[in-house]
């Protein structure tokens, strides 16, 4: 099945920190042959288009490396802001919390597996 990676974002992201995160994350995905990435944003009270784009980028990079991504813990205020601002979050899977996120990841991985090679799920 491979490893799952859990990323918790707790501080305000700015450019350099985001680049560092992307570097670290992609490196770890490869190093641990991870097939799932959980990004926990429950500590974020404010989300802007920069973060939105960053999350989308991470999801795309992860997919290139054969890992699925789920964003968990979005606060209601954040969800409302994203909707009000009309920020496109298509293609990013979300779940309420880490536990549900793991369930979502498992089915996402299964789905992805159907496209290509068959995977054995232990």
């Amino acid at each position, binding site marked *: 099945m491979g490893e799952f990676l859990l990323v918790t974002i707790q501080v305000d992201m700015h450019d350099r920190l985001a680049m560092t995160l992307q570097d670290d994350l992609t490196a770890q995905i490869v190093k641990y042959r991870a097939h799932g990435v959980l990004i926990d944003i429950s500590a974020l009270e404010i989300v802007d288009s920069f973060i939105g784009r960053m999350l989308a980028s991470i999801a795309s990079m992860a997919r290139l490396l054969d890992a699925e991504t789920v964003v968990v813990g979005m606060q*209601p205020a954040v*969800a*409302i802001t*994203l*909707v009000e601002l009309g920020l496109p*979050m298509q293609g990013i899977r*979300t779940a*309420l*919390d880490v536990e*549900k996120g793991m369930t979502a990841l498992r089915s996402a991985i299964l789905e992805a597996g159907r496209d290509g090679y068959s995977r054995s799920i232990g």
Partner: protein
Amino acid sequence: MPSAKNRLSQTFDKREHEIVTQWLEQQQATGRKLNAAEREQTNRLSREFVRSLRAALERNGSGDISGSDWAPVRDLLADFSSQRAKDGYSPRETAGFIFSLKQPVFSALRAELGSDPSALADEIWLATLLLDELGLMTTEAYQKTREDVILRQQKELLELSTPVVRLWENILALPLIGTLDSARTQVVMQNLLEAIVQTRSDFAIIDITGVPVVDTLVAQHLLKTVAAARLMGADCLISGIRPQIAQTIIHLGVDLSAVTTKATLADAFDLALRRSGHKVVREASVASGLTVR
């Protein structure tokens, strides 16, 4: 020419103590019965008021109480009225605080200016204008506080009528009753989203059977709520769409294709149960008609 108003100020200067004493007696005679602590508090407030009034008169005896010279007096009265309104005093009792000051002031003026009837008449008139103005101000402040209480109660009523109900362990329902305006819809949205987080629900059913009118604004708010819930990881269904509402929505050109909608709450509940892997099974009853399991 010495300003006529200055005589009122001088009277207060010379006779502040007796004005206060008589006023306290007047209040006790005409007002409601107070216990010792309340009496002490009112006396203290009265003394402070007269002091403040005297200071304001010295600064500005023109009779215009709207400027900054009279701000301390106005603030004192506003606080006093507000508190009286909250404590359940009537408007008459509250304004009576000021009006009962008339007699002591007139007595003091008579003592000061008794020998000059024309000057006395002038001062009494000016004092009347001043105290009437203050009395009106007191009443307005009182009214404002009562209005604030009503507004607050209305707000609480709004929140009461949008409860989030738990239908099943991971299914919430939000039965909306009444008209939806912007403010209320935002409260509704917030409550629902927070409930989703707290109960870790996967499904939320917004039932609009009780909403008489759906216009573009309401529809947009509903769509935003659904989108936000989905972003958080929960699925939103809308139920209770009545025939007229269905027609209105299509005529308005609102696009609800991204949302699952059902005619009744029961249908939506059934769908949510199935989507979350639940099945409802009816067990056959044993005896005919007597026991139903």
